[in-house]
């Protein structure tokens, strides 16, 4: 009965293909068709512009609190680009680029933050779930969905997104354990954007990487430069193929940065320095990808300008459609909808009570 070392064949890979100076590792460069490269660029730019516009609308008081995505376009789109429409996207609350990529309409996203739950509607040809606000509880839903896909003999996979803060939640570990025990087709995509509101990554965990948390579950993992869309794509391709072919789950840690506020209810100047933000701005995923595409001869400054104008007018048009829908103020009685498939008697009573109150108030107002 000697004391001995148990040799575990574990290591964590780090993947970077296009560095912050735009230097490309040609050996690792993934083979992405040109039209997909351009589509990814367009998706990143659209998400950036829409995010900026949403921030303005929030500051004008037209929409409520939301979580901006600036800086995380590559670390999301590089991964969701691998999904088929029938696959499942299980997002947290900062996945607007992914949602748009999958086909959710901008006016729907505005509806959500304008107070209309109908904005949560997903186009019927997609299997995506609505945003999940409690931190880290939804990877379990993704695990259950992936289990259902496996049980039903489907080839579909699930992909779930969450932040660095979520990796400290118990549910995250329970999800990895469940997914690994049952070997379900699931890709965990951690958006390590360095900040969980005001708590930095260094205070979140002593672990050197977040990716290594998968090792306890004998689950493949990888850490990638999340601001390098080529690296995210390459890593996600391997993970999705593994999941689809019955090889079980993978954890991807995308190192990225939340260039904006946590949510619009937050002031990051209270906990991080301008210098830090400036450092990360140099690693902007959009600028880097544009340089790559220009070097490849797929884009020019003029073309970028043209795409930019296009996406801006798309955002404007969506905003117009949203304003049209919201011209009608939500009916307070709607709050009783969508609680049960069939509204039970006590809720119908509460609804009727509110209806009477509102009618009386209207009557009072009319009588001046």
């Amino acid at each position: 009965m000697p004391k001995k070392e148990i040799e575990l064949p574990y290591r964590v890979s780090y993947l970077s293909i296009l560095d912050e100076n735009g230097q490309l590792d040609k050996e690792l460069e993934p083979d992405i068709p040109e039209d997909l490269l351009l589509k990814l660029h367009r998706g990143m730019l659209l998400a950036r512009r829409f995010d900026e516009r949403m921030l303005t609308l929030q500051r004008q008081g037209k929409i409520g609190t939301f979580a901006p995505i600036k800086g995380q376009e590559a670390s999301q789109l590089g991964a969701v680009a691998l999904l088929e429409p029938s696959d499942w996207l299980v997002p947290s609350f900062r996945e607007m680029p992914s949602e748009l990529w999958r086909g959710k309409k901008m006016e729907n996203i505005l509806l959500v933050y304008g107070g209309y739950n109908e904005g949560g509607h997903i186009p019927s040809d997609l299997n995506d779930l609505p945003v999940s606000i409690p931190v880290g509880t939804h990877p379990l839903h993704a695990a259950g969905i992936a289990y259902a896909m496996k049980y039903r003999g489907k080839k579909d996979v699930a992909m779930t997104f969450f932040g660095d803060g979520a990796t400290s939640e118990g549910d995250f570990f329970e999800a990895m354990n469940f997914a690994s025990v049952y070997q379900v087709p699931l890709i965990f995509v951690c958006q390590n954007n360095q900040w969980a509101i005001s708590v930095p990554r260094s205070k979140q965990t002593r672990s050197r990487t977040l990716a290594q948390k998968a090792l306890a579950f004998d689950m493949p993992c990888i850490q990638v430069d999340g601001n390098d869309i080529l690296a995210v794509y390459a890593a996600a391709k391997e993970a999705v193929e593994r999941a689809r072919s019955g090889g079980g789950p993978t954890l991807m840690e995308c190192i990225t940065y939340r260039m904006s506020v946590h949510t619009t209810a937050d002031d990051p100047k209270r906990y991080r320095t301008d210098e830090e933000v400036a450092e990360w701005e140099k690693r902007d995923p959009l600028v880097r990808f544009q340089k790559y595409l220009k070097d490849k001869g797929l884009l020019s400054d003029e073309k970028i300008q043209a795409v930019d104008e296009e996406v801006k007018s798309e955002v404007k048009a969506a905003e117009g459609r949203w304003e049209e829908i919201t011209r009608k103020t939500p009916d307070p009685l709607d709050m009783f909808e969508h609680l049960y498939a069939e509204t039970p008697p006590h809720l119908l009573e509460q609804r009727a009570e509110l209806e009477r109150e509102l009618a009386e108030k209207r009557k009072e107002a009319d009588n001046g």
Partner: protein
Amino acid sequence: MTNGVETLRKVTYREAVREAIREAMQKDTRVFLMGEDVGHYGGCFAVSKGLLEEFGPERIRDTPLSESGFVGAGIGAALGGMRPIVEIMTVNFSLLAADQIINNAAVYLHMSGGLFNVPLVIRSATGGGRQVGAQHSRSLEGWFAHIPGIKVLSPATVEDARGMLWTALEDPDPVLIFENSGLYNMEGMLPAGAGAVDIDRARVRREGKDITLISYSASLFKSLDAAEILSREGIEAEVIDLRSLRPLDEKTFLDSVAKTHRALVVDEGWRTGSLAAEISARIMEGAFYELDAPVERLCSAEVPMPYAKHLEEAALPQVDKIVDLARKMVKADG
């Protein structure tokens, strides 16, 4: 079916639940059972004994010891087209899955603007009286009954233990079924063709004219025993079995109070902020002028459940306490 007596058979509450699970598994391949020790061990209360052999490990799944994990995964599986029955060994451990139940399952339909129902059924043992100490003897079903977006059932009879599950599985919304662990060995008569029952109505289990005892689950039988004793004294108690704790079928107990003019709520939960408090308030709102005496509540003592047998018995509502209180209420106004 010529002879009604012959068509009845004696089963335990445990067997009734097992039959319900078996039938659901046979009827619908989307149904599967998942939880701690439900497979090889046959469930901590032996409810799923034999089902692994019958249905295989894909459908009778032993899970990691991870309540939030398998409840969350159950939500996901329900969203992914399955009809999961998730067993949380006892309600005490549901606290580890409270966020998944309250903050996720209960609001998914709302958050998705009406797009995603969560057809999930959670079964869990509840209640005290088995000398297993404070951390294994809670009755928290009243807490869950506070939460909009879920339904909370409490089968007391073998017929309900047999029949509520299928109706719950057919319901598009999350349903929690609480089985009092003290009932599993109870025997009852089940009609041979017993099957699905409604899950939204209370039942009058004994008719009476002098006082209404409102109860559910294990306390129902204490209330029925009390009614029997009271009857010998000339007091006829009507006994209501709530069956569904959310939504509450208030019409049934308000109608009864309108007849008897007195109400005593018997609830194993703690008194403060309890289901008993809710029922009392509803009677005040809906039948105040029918009352000849203040509504009374008999609940568990507001202490962690004692381990010692005699202390535990003293902490829980008991037949003699129900009898005493009911007698006082009826005799108070002559």
